């Protein structure tokens, strides 16, 4: 008996194909981590629906999947925002005031590290050195580095993203 989730989502179709290749191989359940990586690659996080699908397809109890998903920090259990902010809390950035920057981000986005803003626009992560210590304190948004930050500049950068999204919504 299976309890597969019925959905038309193309990501789910890709996930199913991925799991199909692994099913029936010896110790197929040992591919769980690889499958969860695939889920996160497709969805950006491990949704409950996706984990249920993995459970049904691979015949692995959900309690076990949940154990693996919560053990590794790499796996995200909440949907990330449309823009992912990684603030560097490494030594160099910290000495140069990353604490204040983090405080400003918390204040501006009303979220803590690991959270996603209520409008789904930003999520906040911490990083340990982004390799740009010369520009400390730094943060990275969707892979782009912003250096020599001040609380005021953080505010401006965030406002910039908000304006950009508002404009694109209008033109669409």
């Amino acid at each position, binding site marked *: *008996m299976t*309890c597969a989730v019925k959905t038309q989502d193309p990501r789910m179709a890709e996930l199913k194909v991925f799991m199909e290749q692994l099913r029936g191989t010896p110790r197929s359940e040992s591919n769980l981590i690889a499958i969860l990586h695939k889920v996160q690659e497709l969805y950006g996080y491990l949704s409950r629906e996706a984990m249920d699908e993995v459970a049904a397809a691979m*015949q692995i*109890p959900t*309690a076990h999947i949940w*154990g693996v998903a*919560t053990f590794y920090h790499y796996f995200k259990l909440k949907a990330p925002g449309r823009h992912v902010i990684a603030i560097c809390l490494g030594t160099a950035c910290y000495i140069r005031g990353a604490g204040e920057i983090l405080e400003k981000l918390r204040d501006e986005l009303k979220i803590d590290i690991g959270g996603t803003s209520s409008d789904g626009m930003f999520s906040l992560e911490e990083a340990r050195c982004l390799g740009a210590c010369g520009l400390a304190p730094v943060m990275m948004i969707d892979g782009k580095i912003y250096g020599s930050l001040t609380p005021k500049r953080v505010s401006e950068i965030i406002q910039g993203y908000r304006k950009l999204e508002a404009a694109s919504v209008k033109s669409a």
Partner: protein
Amino acid sequence: MTKKLTIYINDKPYEVDEGQTIMQAADKLGYHIPRLCYHPKLSIEGACRVCIVEVEGMRNYVASCAYPVAEGMKIRTHTKELRTARRDIVELILDNHPQDCHTCERDGICELQRLAYAMGMRHRHFEGERKNYEKDLSSASVIRDPNKCILCGRCVRICSEIQKVNALGYAHRGFKTVVMPAYNMPFSDSVCTTCGQCINVCPTASFVEKNYSQELFEKLQDKSYIKVAQIAPSVRAAIGEGFDLAPGRAMEKETAAALRKLGFDYVFDTQLSADLTIMEEASEFLERVKGKGKLPMITSCSSAWMKCLEQFYPDLIGNVSTCKSPMSMMGAMIKTYFADKIKADPKKILSVAVMCCTAKKYEAARPELKVNGMPAVDIVVTTREIAWMIKSAGIDFVHIQGEDFDKPLGISSGAGAIFGATGGVMEAALRTAYELYTGEPLVDIEITDVRGLKGIKEGKVTLDGKEIRVAVAHGLGNANHLLETVRKDPERYHFIEIMGCPGGCVGGGGQPYAGSNSMPLDEECLKKRAEALYSIDRHKTIRLSHNNPDVRRLYREFLGKPLGEKSHELLHTHYKPKLPCGIVPQEMTVR
């Protein structure tokens, strides 16, 4: 033949079998190495390190539960250093544990407490960080309290290895590790079958039953109710253990007397409704044998099994008997037949079931089992809860003068008694089915093939030249093996008994905790409880359900005939597939 090895324990030479662990060898030689996460029925976890011993030539102490014996091995089990190390280990476990022993439900019957005493912990060096999680009160049967959890993992292992339910897992890591259902969902929404085996094996009070004893004490004071109790077969076989008596004493009359002293107006016997179940179930089986309905027919008495069925085996729902459990049948009779008899308003009857089972709490709350809009059973308390209530009320259970059950629902046959042991329902049903089908008396009524603690038992009987093949499984893991066989080969059996707990109801999730000299689910203890029921059976003059005079009167005065209209209304029900869907992983395939 197993190779023999010479090992030395505390400088004394011993000859032992190869291929066992130090702990297993030591156990047989009379050394009980202290232990915590170890359980003989479960896989080796090696998590707690309490069972460390010194092995000469090893750099560190080794965990004796996991380390195999070897030729010439020199083992020391209680040197000064070792005892200090063990005490430190237990002390560090306690440092993160709430120090609330005197208000804890398991005060005095806690393995961790016993261990701390044995380690000689007379003062504490550290104040550790405490856990601060919400208790999960969502389940009708089982409460989960992560704050008392010491992460021994017995609950996770019994749920996956013995029951194959896999409701529990470890989430997060390090100090933040918590044993929880998938997605941290409430227990009530998980695949948990409410069997309560996690409670049985938990060394602390991290898992306990949802306790109704205080509520029951209050209701027993309420003069506006007629208070009616029923007692499951297995309760009488184990309740003595709750008073430190040796396992295996059948104490039905003592229990009936104690319940009256607690304030019940009527004490009835669930064994009578077990006989009633047999009347209905044996008749249903014979109908199915004649071609009306699916075979194999599977029993439906075990509430944990019924929840398991709905979530794990929805394809087999049609095979399961439509009979309600003996508890629910008795509840239905109390609120209809008995209420009529004493000319009372059934709404003013408090129907209480004393059960060996935690899952019965869940069953009692099932809306489909209501009778005329009322719950058939209002409160379910376990053997543990009732034993505590008897103590709390100051009733001298050990020396109490026994009393009989009340009329008109108090007489039972021996067949009803053996319901509590694995194979008992099958044996009882076959005794009656044989006579109903052939019209001849059964000569040898003890069907020993289906008795005992083997995981899956098979047997055969001949009904008028027709061979009937039966099978019995106890524990949901064994049930899984059996049902996989049924899925592949539906013709193989005609009749199957499944009980959710190891040993059947005698090993239920609501039975007294293991005493200081035994482990939970100890086979010897389960055998003695079962033997208590078989001895009740042997000493009865009536040993067949259909010869029970109370049951006969019940049909004559009220129900009509088995499978009749009234029976269908009050004694039968139907089950539906339920989410979340259970998954039993395939056995690990070794390359």
